[in-house]
């Protein structure tokens, strides 16, 4: 059966096309007709509908995301900014890091294991496509109430999916978040981050220059994955029943992805790749239009050449298939034999499916007929842009007015501490993290339960350049050379992700800033200097003006805070439509911060490392309980305003922490966040089973449970304390001596005393009891 061709489109100009079923609006469809000067073919409609979808075109968010660029602070570290597959930052000594966070929320609700697994797979391919070796992953997760039946279905599946896929790729998992809130029931958030390493001069871009260069599709074959939409097209256009049932679920093959990683790195090392693009959402449509648009502007593709897992696939379906573990490369004709040989070595199927042209047209054929003939930039870059209306939610003022002042304060602070410490959001996450390999690649300096993950930068992690013999290191197995052992550097990178949906619900502007501030602080407490930002913006429907207001406020807040803190946004992802009916999730901007440390030997652990150390609190504590864990856990209350986002204080605090680490003044350093000082103290005791005795001067309830930002808990050797205090004074960071480490209990003089063993039981018991 032949496909809807351009010729046919010319001869049947009025044939109705199912654009609405594909989620396209009438005016968008009219614009396609205007661009083409005729009705689109089924295949062209497939391309435009996916490329102009919210997911690919950012049509609702674009106008707001621009601020990340227009307000971006000057940063010499930024090598590649927003707009590429992932941003790239200079981390010194000729090394660069590329990192990005991306959501796979909805698929993880439908099929938790596969949804989460393919989320990891997708972000890893983004990082690979920059020319980097992926070196670690992280996962920021949000679920409904911990004891909700559906959470029992979703959480174990999601964790298993991330565990299986990430472990199988050999990528250490160095951090993340697990947060429960009833607002995420039906809309869990699965945000996966990947970081990669490359030499500064090895950055690859998604581009297809050079007419005559070959277009190679390699990796898994194409099947009917995630093409619910396309089936509408195939059946509507052709009345073909067999296409009605197509799976919306994509299944991942981490083994194939591992082969792809090694294969790509060897291809880069052999210098046989001119341009490269991963296939994610919108698959072949996206890869071909984007590569062509950024290159010489034209490409011919024979869709019959795409290797299929299911031979019944129609061209429209091939174009929209989201089959995983595929990449597309642009290769000089003379390099094709070398390219194919490397793919064969790694058992990675590869097929030439087309060629770069200078016609300015993306032309695709099927059974010898032209079925696509479009200017690729119109699909890739010139999608619709919406200025969606927004307006403050009707209940916002009332929400802010309902402050926690009316909540009854606890009489028994010991019981309150234990209640919070054992609550699902604050309890130990080992049930999750012990399912992740955190050691593979042997460069993990810090992982759970540290505030930030940290990796040593090591030569063998990065792709090796072509040696003088024209042979890459990865070829050694054949050539009989030995492993080269450039010594690892002392340099390291640190990464943290954070986000608090309750804060953002109370004030999306401040909430986004607090998310950045916390991730920034989590990096700084390890001794690393924060450098750059990625973000994943999880929101409800952009068609709801109240959600759009949250989005506008959050992006404005984040962009402003990035400018103030001097850390540019390098990339990210927007996930809209996280809502059930009219009930949207809390606005949840998740922010990832990457930092550098010159010498990983100077990294600072988060807990109490020994007896007799001075314990101090940095930063000021105000009475701030809006959106706090205490209000949430004890009173089920959400109202008032979130803690103040004092960015100047954050910056001064980070400066002190990084300087102090560099000078070896700190034994331990832990950021204060959810649950306040009480939880930070408990966690510090739990790290090595070392207790502490501290004294609080003011109201102990506020002192222990307020969630004021810009604070950290540090431990200092007594003989270094004076120098440390002087450093704090120099940067005007308040430093309050609290007490001293030692013993086997946490003692707050005159307030509470809890044996560390009891803290441990409370902290570790919760998730196993819930999830088995």
């Amino acid at each position, binding site marked *: 059966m032949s496909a809807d061709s351009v010729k046919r489109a010319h001869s049947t100009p009025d044939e109705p096309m199912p654009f609405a079923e594909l989620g396209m609006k009438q005016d968008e469809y009219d614009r396609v007709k205007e661009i083409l000067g005729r009705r689109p073919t089924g295949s062209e409609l497939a391309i435009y509908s996916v490329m102009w979808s919210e997911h690919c075109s950012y049509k609702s968010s674009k106008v707001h995301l621009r601020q990340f660029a227009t307000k971006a602070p000057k940063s010499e570290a930024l090598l590649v900014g927003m707009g590429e597959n992932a941003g790239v930052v200079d981390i010194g000594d000729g090394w660069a890091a590329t990192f990005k966070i991306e959501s796979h929320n909805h698929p993880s609700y439908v099929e938790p294991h596969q949804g989460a697994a393919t989320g990891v797979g997708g972000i890893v391919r983004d990082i690979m496509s920059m020319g980097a070796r992926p070196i670690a992953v992280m996962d920021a997760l949000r679920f409904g109430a911990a004891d909700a039946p559906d959470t029992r279905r979703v959480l174990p599946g999601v964790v298993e999916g991330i565990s299986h896929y990430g472990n*199988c790729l050999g990528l250490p998992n160095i951090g993340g978040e697990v947060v429960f809130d009833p607002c995420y029931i039906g809309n869990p958030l699965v945000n996966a981050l990947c970081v990669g390493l490359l030499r500064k001069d090895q950055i690859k871009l998604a581009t297809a220059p050079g007419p005559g260069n070959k277009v190679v599709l390699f990796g898994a074959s194409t099947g009917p994955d995630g093409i619910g939409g396309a089936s509408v097209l195939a059946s509507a256009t052709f009345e073909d029943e067999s296409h009605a049932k197509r799976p919306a679920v994509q299944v991942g093959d*981490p083994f194939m992805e591992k082969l792809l990683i090694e294969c790509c790195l060897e291809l880069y090392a052999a210098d046989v790749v001119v341009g490269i693009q991963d296939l994610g959402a919108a698959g072949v449509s996206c890869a071909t239009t984007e590569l062509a648009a950024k290159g010489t502007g034209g490409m011919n593709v024979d869709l019959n050449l795409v290797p299929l897992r299911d031979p019944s696939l129609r061209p429209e379906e091939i174009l929209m298939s989201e089959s995983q573990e595929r990449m597309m490369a642009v290769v000089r004709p003379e390099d094709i034999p070398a390219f194919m040989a490397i793919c064969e070595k790694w058992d990675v199927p590869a097929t030439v499916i087309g060629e770069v042209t200078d016609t300015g047209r993306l032309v695709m054929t099927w059974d010898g007929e032209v079925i696509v003939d479009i200017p690729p930039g119109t699909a890739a870059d010139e999608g619709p842009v919406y200025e969606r209306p927004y307006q403050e939610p009707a209940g916002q003022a009332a929400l802010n007015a309902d402050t926690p002042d009316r909540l009854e304060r606890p009489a028994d602070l010991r019981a309150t501490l234990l209640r919070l410490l054992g609550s699902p959001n604050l309890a130990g996450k080992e049930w999750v993290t*012990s399912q992740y390999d955190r*050691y593979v690649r042997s*460069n993990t300096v810090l992982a759970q339960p540290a505030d930030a993950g940290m990796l040593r930068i090591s030569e*063998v992690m990065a792709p090796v350049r072509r040696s003088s013999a024209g042979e890459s290191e990865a070829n050694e197995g054949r050539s*009989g050379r030995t492993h080269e052992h450039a010594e690892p550097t002392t340099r390291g990178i640190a990464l943290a992700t954070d986000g608090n949906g309750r804060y953002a619900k109370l004030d999306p502007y401040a909430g986004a800033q607090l998310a950045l501030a916390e991730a920034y602080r989590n990096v700084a407490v390890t001794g690393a200097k924060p450098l750059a930002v990625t973000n994943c913006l999880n929101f409800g429907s952009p068609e709801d003006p109240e959600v759009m207001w949250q989005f506008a406020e959050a992006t404005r807040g984040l962009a402003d805070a990035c400018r103030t803190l001097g850390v540019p946004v390098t990339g990210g992802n927007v996930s809209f439509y996280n809502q059930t009916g009219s009930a949207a999730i809390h606005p949840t901007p998740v922010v990832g911060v990457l930092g550098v440390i010159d010498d990983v030997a100077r990294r600072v652990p988060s807990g109490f490392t020994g007896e007799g150390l001075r314990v101090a609190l940095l930063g000021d504590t105000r009475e701030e309980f809006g959106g706090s864990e205490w209000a949430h856990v004890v009173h089920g209350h959400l109202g008032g305003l979130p803690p103040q986002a004092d960015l100047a204080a954050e910056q001064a605090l980070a400066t002190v922490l990084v300087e102090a680490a560099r000078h070896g003044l700190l034994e331990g350093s832990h950021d204060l966040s959810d649950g306040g000082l009480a939880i930070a103290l408990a966690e510090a005791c739990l790290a090595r089973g070392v207790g502490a005795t501290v004294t609080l001067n003011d109201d102990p309830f506020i002192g222990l449970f307020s969630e004021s930002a810009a604070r950290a808990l540090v431990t200092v050797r007594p003989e270094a304390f004076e120098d440390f205090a002087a450093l704090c004074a120099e940067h005007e960071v308040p430093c309050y001596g609290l007490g001293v480490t030692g013993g086997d209990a946490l003692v707050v003089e005159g307030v509470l005393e809890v044996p560390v063993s009891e803290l441990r039981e409370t902290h570790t018991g919760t998730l196993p009891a819930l999830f088995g």
Partner: protein
Amino acid sequence: MSAARVGVVTFPGTLDDQDAAKAVHLVGAQAVPLWHADHDLKGVDAVFLPGGFSYGDYLRCGAISRFAPLMDELIPAARAGLPVLGTCNGFQILCEAHLLPGALTRNASLHYVCRDQPLRVEQNATAWTSAFGQGQEIVLPIKHGEGRYVASADTIAELEATGRVALRYVGNPNGSTNDIAGITNEAGNVVGIMPHPEHAVEELVGAPSTDGLGFFTSILKKLVNA
């Protein structure tokens, strides 16, 4: 004298090969990459079969790798006395290849587990454990979903009676029979263990222990004295 040469095997899906090579290098030996598809052991003095998910661990861990061309060379060489250490997936491959008895099955918890695991060295008269004291307690990371060692009752009895349990868990993480974490063949040259010594060789990175070094210094000592 030229350095001892320890082959490190890479199968499709092997993950810890670079880590193992680093550890070999760290003790002053030379790491020689061995490729699964080659019929060539490159004249190495010993072989390290690293962990990972060779062939995705599809079908059964190690089931497909065992048939690699390299294994055609390795199996007879190991039978003839070549020292071989298999860790994690490497252990699974050694069992599938029948160089070691028994099998590694799904953890009793049904979960993959990554943790710092206390262990006891039960047999230090092997090529890979001589640097430890008999009965010495060490800590190494484990990270596996299928590490529960099982074998017939006769095999277990024989392993115990002949001192072929090389390593035992202190606190069983996966339901292994008799807490077995590692075993050796009769000759003591082929050893398979679930934990990962290559992740416990440096202070700053990996597990909070350097107990893994002993496996590498053991083999180095053996090769240099040979």
